[in-house]
């Protein structure tokens, strides 16, 4: 053989691409020349998710070829140039454009073609198949001038195509020859439930009928004649009546093919010519089957890559045919021996025809789960499929009952055996998933979850919760544990904490972007003074580091504190002048203050010099710290007000400003029960009563809004402040990283009652300590910006370039919008072209 052998791959589909990745993983790409010849005009894409094109995924987003993958591995790809002949004696292939390529190993991955029944009229304009992106583009275009469509074939793909036509606004018919929909996957009972669901979605189903003829007028489809004699008026027809392996090339060059098609291969996917392999849907596997699913094809790809890499490999001996329908709104799944063909097997069935739910499990005499069909509620699919072949931990009848009707409460993925295959698309076991700690990591390391996505729910449940996981890859402790450690040991150094309490592998290292700011915040709330000093400087996120909020183009925003939202005209004028003089974009925030955007890092000190001179302080918009205490106008002006809400809001904001916490803190004070300050959407909210103040805790807006709960009623000013002191310090001490008070409160064992015992009744005897921690914070507070401006050493970091302190960053640019500025983002992308 040549010193650098050539591997030629025919067909760049899903399996072909997986084969290339498997070669790259084994280093074969570095030792061999690899040439890929594809018929389609574009590189491999996700055919399984093809239909998602209609829900907005672009052809580019459907690509399964990683950016730069082919270049990095030196793989030559020629698209739009099919192979038309193979000369096995000369070991060459010839393409449609006349190119001849010699090979040492030839791999055929030509997939399937849609079968179109030989009915008259099937070539008329308006007849389509459903296989490629080009098919979908053509369907989409034609549908613009159509009102009614029909799909021939009520199988998995047919229903997907029908759903797509419906989505394009067509009245849609499904014509299925078999007596039920999805005859391959679903049994009679399941078919009946499925029929009801599909009809409820507005599709018209004709089962037990064949298509006799496509009626055309002037060469374009106008209708369809069915085998029962009826006629349908339709403008377009999509054939989805099964697929056939593309084995023509193999036939023509004399390779063995199966009686009913498919390129015959052995367990290692070798054809009758040892230099030629066939993988994916075009292959007739050693077990005598042609697999129309992607997972078995991936297995074949792996097998051939292993053979070419000279590895021992068990080969491909068969695969399971589990499927889950991806159609929006229909839950259908089948797995394992869904039809109960094994000898002596038994069915366990639950059916509710009103709800369109049908669930059947097939078990053997020993109670082992063999397979099943789920229609209308396939929630359990992710869990049941991996259990196939083993005995479920609870009796099977309990597995099919709907939730709440005696269904097992605690049957989770934990019950799965270690070798259970959780992701069938990529053949990934529970054990392999257990090696990872995040979903992103699972996807990156095992590919699980990147195929049909049906397993993602189960994967998430298999991943460790934050408490089991520790803070991050560096610390095995949670934030609250680290807080206690730092407090007890009086640690003031991140490095010392990492080296003494980090994971073995992380000791002596740098930490990471998760633990550095988290520990920085712990050290800060334990009273470590100015947060930019010494080692602490390296712990803070860039926002804390520059005491401003980083924006998408690299500029910063500036938010001066406006306690309680009360501001004098003089101060408003200063903000206006500063914004005007530095050309900043100004906006009133949702927190009753003013945000100034578009400052370059080197402008921050001069901006703040002006603001500090006028009496402003940092608003901590950048920190996990107290943001604002909003107020309503209250008793002073408002006819309904019963307390001075503005005065209290200012008092609270000044008391807790600068307090570092596991997440940001927000507050508000309303002057009466009308609640104009929205106090109940805050971490701690105060509402005036005739007798004093009601204190609410654990509220927030944001992504999952929660109303705050009433902690105590009719408090005096002093009582209110004391309870808030205790509440905040208890939260800071026991919450996890980025856990807002709402989430913390819901997690807290004993909930609100427990919190009330600790904070109000002092059941743990902690109150004095919590109050003194807060007193230390209040006494130690200093404005971070004033301190920074006073210290030339600290000011040195506010330059765009360390070697050119006078030069502003030329890439931070703006364009006008509505009489102000906005970031010039087009320039940033442009910049990329020139600087790379």
């Amino acid at each position, binding site marked *: 053989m040549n010193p650098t052998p050539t591997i030629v791959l025919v067909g760049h589909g899903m399996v072909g691409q997986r084969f290339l990745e498997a070669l790259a993983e084994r280093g074969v790409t570095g030792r061999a020349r690899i040439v890929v010849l594809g018929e389609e005009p574009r590189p491999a894409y996700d055919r399984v998710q093809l239909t998602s094109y209609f829900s907005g995924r672009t052809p580019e987003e459907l690509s399964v070829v990683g950016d730069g993958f082919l270049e990095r591995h030196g793989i030559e790809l020629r698209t739009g140039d099919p192979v038309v002949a193979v000369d096995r004696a000369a070991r060459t292939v010839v393409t449609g454009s006349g190119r001849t390529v010699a090979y040492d190993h030839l791999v055929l991955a030509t997939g399937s073609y849609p079968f179109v029944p030989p009915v008259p009229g099937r070539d008329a304009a308006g007849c389509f198949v459903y296989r490629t992106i080009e098919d979908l583009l053509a369907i989409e275009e034609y549908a613009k001038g159509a009102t009614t469509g029909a799909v021939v074939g009520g199988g998995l793909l047919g229903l997907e195509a029908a759903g797509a036509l419906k989505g394009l606004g067509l009245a849609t018919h499904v014509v299925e020859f078999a007596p039920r929909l999805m005859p391959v996957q679903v049994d009679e009972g399941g078919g009946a439930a499925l029929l009801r669901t599909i009809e409820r979605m507005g599709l018209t189903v004709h089962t037990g009928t064949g298509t006799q003829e496509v009626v055309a007028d002037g060469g374009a489809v106008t209708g369809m004649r069915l085998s029962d004699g009826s006629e349908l008026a339709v403008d377009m027809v999509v054939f989805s009546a099964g697929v056939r392996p593309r084995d023509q090339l193999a036939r023509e060059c004399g390779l063995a093919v199966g009686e009913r098609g498919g390129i015959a291969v052995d367990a290692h996917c070798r054809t009758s010519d040892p230099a030629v392999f066939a993988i994916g849907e075009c292959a007739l596997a050693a077990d005598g089957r042609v697999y129309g699913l992607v997972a078995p094809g991936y297995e074949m790809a792996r097998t051939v890559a292993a053979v070419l890499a000279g590895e021992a490999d068990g080969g491909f001996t068969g695969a399971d045919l589990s499927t889950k329908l991806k159609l929006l709104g229909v839950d259908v799944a089948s797995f394992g021996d869904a039809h109960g063909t094994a000898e002596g097997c038994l069915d366990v069935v639950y059916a509710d025809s009103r709800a369109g739910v049908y669930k059947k499990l097939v078990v053997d005499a020993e109670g082992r789960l063999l397979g099943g069909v789920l229609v209308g509620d396939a929630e359990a699919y992710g869990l049941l499929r991996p259990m196939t072949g083993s005995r479920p931990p609870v009796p099977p009848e309990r597995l099919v009952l709907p939730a709440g009707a005696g269904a097992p409460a605690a049957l989770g993925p934990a019950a799965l055996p270690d070798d259970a295959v959780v992701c069938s698309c990529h053949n990934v076991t529970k054990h392999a998933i257990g090696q990872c700690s995040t979903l992103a990591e699972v996807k990156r390391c095992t590919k699980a979850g990147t195929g049909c996505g049906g397993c993602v729910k189960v994967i998430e449940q298999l991943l460790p919760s934050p408490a089991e996981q520790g803070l991050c890859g560096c610390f095995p402790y949670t934030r609250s544990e680290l807080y206690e450690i730092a407090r007890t040991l009086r640690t003031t150094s991140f490095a010392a904490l990492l080296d003494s309490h980090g994971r073995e592998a992380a000791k002596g290292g*740098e930490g990471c972007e998760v633990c*550095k700011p988290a520990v920085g915040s712990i050290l800060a709330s334990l009273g470590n003074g100015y947060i930019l000093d010494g080692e602490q400087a390296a712990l803070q996120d*860039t926002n804390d580091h520059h005491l401003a909020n980083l924006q998408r183009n690299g500029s910063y925003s500036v938010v001066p504190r406006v306690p309680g939202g009360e501001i004098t005209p003089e101060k408003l004028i200063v903000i206006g002048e500063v914004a005007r003089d530095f050309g900043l974009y100004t906006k009133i925030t949702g927190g009753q203050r003013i945000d100034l955007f578009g400052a370059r890092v080197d402008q921050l000190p001069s901006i703040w010099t002006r603001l500090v001179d006028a009496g402003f302080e940092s608003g901590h918009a950048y920190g996990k710290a107290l943001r604002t205490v909003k107020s309503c106008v209250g008793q002073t002006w408002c006819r309904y007000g019963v307390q001075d809400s503005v005065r209290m809001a200012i008092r609270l904001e000044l008391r807790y400003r600068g307090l570092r916490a596991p997440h940001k803190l927000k507050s508000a004070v309303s002057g009466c029960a009308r609640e104009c300050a929205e106090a109940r959407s805050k971490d701690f909210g105060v509402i005036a009563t005739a007798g004093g103040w009601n204190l609410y805790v654990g509220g927030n807006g944001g992504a999952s809004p929660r109303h705050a709960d009433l902690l105590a009623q009719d408090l005096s000013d002093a009582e209110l402040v004391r309870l808030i002191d205790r509440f905040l310090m208890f939260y800071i001490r026991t919450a996890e990283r980025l856990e807002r008070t709402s989430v913390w409160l819901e997690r807290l064992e004993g909930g609100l009652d427990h919190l009330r015992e600790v904070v109000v009744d002092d059941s743990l005897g902690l109150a004095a300590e919590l109050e003194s921690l807060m007193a230390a914070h209040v006494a130690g507070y200093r404005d971070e910006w004033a301190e920074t401006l006073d210290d030339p050493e600290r000011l*040195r970091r506010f330059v765009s370039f*360390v*070697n050119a302190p006078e030069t502003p*960053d030329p890439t931070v640019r703006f364009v006008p919008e509505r009489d102000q500025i906005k970031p010039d983002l087009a320039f940033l992308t442009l910049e990329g072209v020139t*600087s790379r």
Partner: protein
Amino acid sequence: MTVLELSTAPGSWTAVCEEARLTPGRGLAALLPDGRQAAVFRDRAGRAYAIDNRDPFTGAQVLSRGLVGSAGGRPFVASPLLKQRFDLATGRCLDDEAVVVAVYEIRAR
């Protein structure tokens, strides 16, 4: 006094700053003679690194303002914008294998 220098072309070096100016675990940006920007870092052990300052995910010149960490003993910086991590020695993005940023040679003199 030790000064850090960057190589912008074979054999040509640009002075960046005194080594002591770099807080271990934090970065600084440097302007290169051809207008490109470098992000310069020092780890706990005192080793210096330089990669391109441009965050390829957003186009903004901000990598120097990210946090330094280490994974498997290799130092990385996490972009301050969307947190993708880049290996400081190779420039490779740890969260998207297809993305790489340029690495500059750096020395202490």
